């Protein structure tokens, strides 16, 4: 279990409320063991997200789940539906019920109706509202309608939208359609225009959470891990005191803090992918059976009023 306490990032400028250290990178990788040595205050023997949450004072908590790839049955994990179920079972027994869940895409592996149905059957057992954004694996059906039929109600374009919860403004973006040859993830002009309007006139003290499938910042362009026009989206978020960007797609925990923006990617519940450049390709990584569950998992995000950063706790399916 790993906890990132965002309250301790150097001296705070009393005027802007931001850390003087403009760029602070604390990249974290799954499976390296580094995370575990810095995880203060979360007793692993108690094991679950819930133990950490129970220790927290009042605050809104929501969960991030990502990259379920229901239907995936290759050697890296022959039973992706089973590990999704394990993740949901852990959420079900959390002592403090989260307010809701976000799913950052790749619900299915091949956009088959049966895969979406299986995912829904398992995820609904958490008995939480789920806010989805699509991954590229969710738009593979001929008419690109299975995702939209199920999750697209009340959304714009290919499925972007915003909502408010406990004083936090949440924005779900789609960066997996209309990708250009040689390029990265893509938001597109129409969505960017909508985003600008969505943020216009909003109080700069409103905490913002942006979530999308592909990382909005450039993680590793050689593997397509980034968003071509992500910087434009971040431009619109400048000036907001607290911005948290949550992504999936890369099947590993990675984090970066830059000024007022915290970037964070979640683990997959299906299979791990290699750290950038450590393998010939970003394809599914086969690990020893007893190691797989240490590389899959979910993230829990806690928002406390008055605090600069949202606390993000990544929890693997097994320690």
């Amino acid at each position, binding site marked *: 279990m790993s906890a990132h306490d965002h309250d301790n990032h150097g001296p705070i400028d009393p005027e802007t409320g931001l850390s003087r250290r403009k760029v602070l990178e604390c990249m974290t990788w799954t499976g390296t063991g580094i995370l575990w040595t810095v995880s203060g205050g979360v007793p692993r023997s108690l094991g679950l997200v819930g133990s950490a949450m129970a220790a927290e004072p009042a605050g809104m908590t929501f969960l991030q789940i990502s990259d379920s790839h229901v239907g995936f049955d*290759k050697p890296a994990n022959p039973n992706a539906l089973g590990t999704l179920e394990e993740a949901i079972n852990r959420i079900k027994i959390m002592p403090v019920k989260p307010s809701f869940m976000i799913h950052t895409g790749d619900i299915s592996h*091949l956009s088959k109706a049966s895969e979406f149905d299986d995912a829904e059957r398992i995820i609904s057992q958490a008995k939480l509202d789920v806010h989805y954004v699509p991954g590229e694996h969710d738009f593979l059906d001929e008419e690109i309608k299975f995702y939209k039929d199920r999750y697209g109600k009340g959304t714009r374009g290919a499925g972007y939208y915003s909502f408010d919860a406990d004083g936090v403004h949440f924005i779900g973006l789609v960066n997996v359609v209309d*990708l*250009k040859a040689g390029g*990265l993830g893509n938001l597109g002009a129409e969505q960017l225009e909508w985003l600008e309007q969505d943020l216009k006139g909003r109080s700069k003290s409103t905490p913002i959470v942006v979530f999308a499938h592909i990382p909005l910042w450039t993680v590793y362009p*050689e593997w397509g891990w980034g968003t071509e026009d992500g910087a434009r989206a971040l431009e619109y978020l400048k000036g907001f005191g607290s911005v948290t960007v949550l992504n999936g797609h890369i099947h590993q925990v990675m984090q970066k803090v830059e000024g007022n923006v915290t970037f964070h990617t979640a683990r997959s519940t299906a299979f791990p992918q290699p750290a950038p450049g450590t393998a010939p390709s970003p394809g599914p990584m086969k690990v020893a059976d007893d190691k797989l569950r240490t590389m899959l998992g979910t993230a829990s995000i806690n928002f406390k009023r008055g605090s600069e950063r949202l606390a993000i706790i990544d929890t693997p399916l097994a320690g």
Partner: protein
Amino acid sequence: MISAMFGRTGARLAVAAALSLYLGISGAHAEESKVTIDNFTFSPAELKVKVGDTVTWSNHDDIPHTVVSAGKFRSKAMDTDGTFSFTFTTAGEYKYFCSLHPHMTGTIKVE
């Protein structure tokens, strides 16, 4: 039973003959070429073929890929061991990419 089998083969031969007659205008020796996908890479990345040749892409990754050349051809998602074939009837340079992983690019040069 045997005559029925011969019958089917005969019909197939007739279709094949008609096809080669149709393609015969640009040369009777249309060839089959292959592009494989391993580790998110098209191999060969650049392939030269003749007008009338057919190229078949096959995906050896554990992740689905597509082959898309804007306005020219577009495959469905190919799962592991999935294939897509396209017959090139016009000379030119066809740049293509995987619409799911756009950093994957390739070129077919048709002469």
